[in-house]
């Protein structure tokens, strides 16, 4: 203390510090009296038993619903056989659990794999966390365990929620599945409070919205008897109640999803996406072949997992967003728009060379799919008949940049930004790309011919095709495809802005485009099969993509009703053949089911929009 202060002040300051010390130690004394006198009896009892365990109370995962609130994924109780490790010091019990006889009996009772059980038990003993030995045990297994539990140290039955997908394989790749967390995920998410045995979204919406769907597990201290059986909860330290995860409502319409699945029934491998062009919400998404996510909830065996991943069909892959295909003739929409926007052609433009079934360029003959030839067509008719010779010349005439820019503006060759994990990018080659692959400036002009008809290096996902179709239907207004409509407890859920700004060009061009695409679906066009609902006009474009590994892929993109589009869709059917024979009929079947559910009352259905418009897409 500086010398300046008077002695009186010094004394009073000392008194205050001393008083603080007395008060503080007084608090400790009070705490001691409380524990050692007031609570002595109870704490002494606990000390005698000394069997207190911390049990996790599992939080239910949020449900996933379709736009009408129909359940797509929720939870059901499952009875798990678990191993609860002994307290650290009790070496006897640790030893007991690595005992061969114990292991043999446990493995027998749960009908499990010896190595697997040993590994899990050792891990549990090391970390002190409860290990799930068998998830969703059937009744017979549970009965066997209950019977011998009294002399199987550490074995217990625990009720925990598991995931249930009531519609089975319906929209399986979109929903994804949730399963037990693996070591890698545990490490990656160490700071988010995940623990051994937690359920975590692995793919699809379950993965993309993991942070929302996942709840916060609770915990309670329980008093257990010598056999590890729970006697009562501990009054000290009240239980922390679990916080359930948030429900997520999708833009998916279950009835459209079902209709699309029915329409796709004949297609073994492929994908289809239905969008609402007005706001980009995904109404349905199918990827074939499908799988049943319920299999994963119950805990999938390694053999089954290998089976799912190795038979070449990859059912777990969401082909709608994760596979890229050559767009084939559906790309002619892009070329035509590019030509119109650049002012290089108008609806009545004819190309110098009429179609006689092929086109000679650079000493090579590029064939038209119509071997007999189309004759000389104008632009609109060339699209209607999908004349390759016309579009070879259009591609040559335009050059790479306008086509590539239009493809880019329509959202091809880049991620759409959909709220699903691991979206594929696809590829729309730029001049930079060609310069890298050939020598700078020396790449053959032949690539332009191929580009004109959507062949060559081009790769797009079905989702990109659907998005492109939506932008065309919207007369250039871009939308961002998304699958989540709202999240429980988050009032204002906003869809992010589209990745691409869209296409700004004159209404006349869009009128031409819509007319040409409409003619595709009229008699004489390549997609007459899609026009299945009397009185409703459809606009579309077929595609047949050559595929070096087998039969051609069939493609079709379209939107409807023409005058006021509420549906935009893209279909890719792998190795089927022509788009007009395989993909367009899928659209026809879908429209019949959506717009003519049973009575054929077209008017009513088309007058009422499929969905209410969402404002957030407008900004």
């Amino acid at each position, binding site marked *: 203390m*500086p010398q*300046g202060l008077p002695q009186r002040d010094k004394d009073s300051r000392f008194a*205050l510090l001393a008083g603080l010390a007395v008060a503080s130690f007084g608090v400790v*004394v009070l705490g001691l009296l409380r*524990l050692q006198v007031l609570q002595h009896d109870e704490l002494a009892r606990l000390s005698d038993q000394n069997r207190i365990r*911390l049990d996790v109370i599992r939080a239910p995962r949020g449900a996933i619903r379709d736009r009408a609130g129909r359940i797509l994924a929720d939870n059901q109780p499952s009875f798990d056989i678990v191993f609860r490790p002994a307290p650290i*010091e009790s070496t006897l019990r640790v030893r007991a659990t690595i005992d061969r006889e114990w292991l043999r009996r446990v493995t027998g009772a749960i009908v499990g794999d010896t190595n697997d059980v040993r590994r899990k038990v050792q891990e549990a003993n090391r970390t002190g966390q409860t290990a799930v030995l068998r998830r969703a045990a059937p009744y017979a297994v549970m009965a066997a365990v209950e019977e011998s539990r009294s002399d199987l140290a550490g074995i217990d039955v625990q009720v925990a929620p598991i995931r249930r997908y009531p519609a089975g394989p319906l929209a399986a790749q979109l929903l994804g599945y949730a399963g037990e967390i693996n070591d890698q995920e545990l490490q990656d998410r160490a700071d988010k409070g995940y623990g051994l045995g937690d359920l975590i979204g692995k793919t699809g919406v379950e993965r993309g919205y993991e942070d929302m769907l996942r709840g916060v597990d609770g915990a309670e201290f329980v008093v257990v008897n010598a056999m590890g059986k729970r006697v009562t909860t501990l009054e000290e330290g009240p239980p922390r109640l679990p916080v359930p995860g948030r429900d997520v409502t999708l833009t998916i319409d279950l009835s459209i999803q079902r209709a699309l699945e029915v329409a796709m029934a004949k297609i073994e491998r492929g994908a289809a996406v239905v969008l609402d062009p007005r706001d980009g919400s995904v109404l349905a998404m199918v990827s074939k072949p499908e799988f049943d996510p319920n299999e994963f909830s119950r805990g999938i065996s390694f053999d089954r997992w290998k089976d799912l991943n190795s038979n070449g069909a990859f059912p777990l892959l969401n082909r709608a967003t994760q596979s890229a295909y050559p767009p084939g003739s559906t790309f002619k929409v892009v070329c035509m728009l590019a030509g119109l926007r650049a002012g290089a052609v108008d609806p009545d433009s004819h190309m110098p060379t009429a179609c006689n079934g092929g086109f000679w360029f650079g000493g090579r003959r590029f064939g038209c799919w119509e071997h007999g030839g189309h004759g000389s067509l104008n632009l609109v008719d060339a699209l209607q008949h999908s004349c390759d010779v016309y579009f070879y010349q259009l591609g040559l005439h335009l050059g790479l940049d306008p086509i590539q820019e239009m493809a880019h503006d329509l959202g091809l060759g880049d991620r759409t930004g959909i709220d699903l994990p691991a979206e594929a990018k696809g590829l729309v080659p730029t001049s930079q790309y060609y310069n890298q692959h050939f020598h700078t400036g020396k790449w053959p002009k032949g690539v332009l011919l191929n580009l004109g008809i959507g062949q060559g290096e081009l790769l797009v996902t079905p989702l990109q095709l659907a998005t492109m179709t939506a932008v065309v239907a919207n007369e250039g207004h871009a939308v961002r495809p998304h699958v989540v409509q709202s999240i429980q407890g988050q009032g204002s859920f906003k869809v992010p802005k589209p990745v691409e700004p869209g296409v700004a060009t004159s209404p006349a061009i869009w009128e031409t485009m819509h007319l040409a695409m409409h003619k595709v679906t009229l008699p004489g066009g390549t997609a007459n099969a899609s026009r299945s609902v009397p009185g409703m006009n459809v606009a579309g474009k077929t595609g047949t993509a050559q595929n070096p590994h087998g039969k051609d892929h069939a493609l079709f993109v379209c939107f409807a009703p023409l005058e006021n589009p509420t549906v935009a869709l893209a279909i890719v059917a792998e190795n089927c053949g022509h788009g007009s024979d395989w993909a367009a009929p899928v659209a026809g079947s879908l429209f019949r089911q959506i717009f003519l559910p049973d009575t054929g009352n077209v008017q009513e259905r088309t007058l009422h929009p499929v969905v209410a418009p969402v404002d957030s897409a407008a900004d």
Partner: protein
Amino acid sequence: MKFRLPPLDWPLAFATLGLIGIGLATVYSATSVPGAHQGLWAKQFLWFVVALGFAWIIAAVHYRFYDSISWPLYAASLVALVAVFAIGVERLGAKRWIELGPLQFQPSEIAKLATTFVLARFFDHARLDLRKLRWWVPPLFVTLVPFVLVAKEPDLGTASSFPAMLVAMYFWAGMPASQLVLGLSPILNVMLFFLTGSVWWFAGLFVGLLAWARPRVVVLVAMLALNGAVAVALPKLWNHLHDYQKRRIETFLNPEQDPSGSGYQVIQSKIAIGSGGVTGKGYLKGSQKALAYLPMRHTDFIYSVVGEELGLLGSLTVVLLYGIVVFRGYRLASIARDGFASLMAVGITTALFFHIMVNMLMTIGWAPVTGVPLPFLSYGGTALIVNCIQIGLLQNVALRRREY
């Protein structure tokens, strides 16, 4: 010539020795269970001998020497604190130690002493006027730098003793108590918000505080603005935090609800203490099962072992001995011969006092688990040496209190 005892502060000396004695006996008991820590008490006894030597030397050198080297020592300790990030040894996820050959030391402990010296030197100034900015701001920075460095290691327990020390020394240097509390009000604001979940509790308190302190207009406006900003920003900030971040804070405030383990420790600690009752289960007779639940029974949770085996009588004896240490420390501060010694004594006593309270309140479940050892009792060489050095410095003040 008649032999005369040196004018040591004997109550302080005996209380310290008593605590160390109880500590050795309890470490022996706590490590008598078969396991990895058996025999540690012998090592701890060796540390005690070394620590006594340190205390002796520290007490023998006149404190004016510490006064004179305070700034260089402070600078060196900051260098060591920075160096610990580069060459420090990592243990249990924290870098707190520097190894010099066979020796290991914690720069944070040296920084604590050096900061005490620097603050004492600064406050012991003829023209000190704590109403002026240029007098009360520098100590804030002098403390903040080592505080941040130590907190980053991370060692929150040791770090938080820096501000405790600073507040006590401000007070001892003559800052009016009301102004001090007013200055601390934003911290109080944050704490009350987390305890009660509402900013209105603090608002009421703040009005009373203003009536008591009657600050100048400038100060009044500044504090109103600061607390207003805290009151507005805090709930918003809270809502912006991720769930897992909220959970961490909640766990810190209420460890019993933490499923990951520290809540478990606290419950076991309370069971150990409570089951001891008034007379205890008897020395060496603590239920070994109960003890074994406490992973840090010979270090951070040693007080639970005292409570279990020696009962209320034993734990109150320990409280009494600590009371003597703290009381004598502050007493020495008020009878010291000059300003530096007086301020140094307050800083050192407060640091000890703070650690004692943090640890004891933790073991009885009334404070978060922070990993602060109990001075003189917990096993650990560095802590024992540093605590004995602190006592040596207090005795240094005592030895020279009658010099002229």
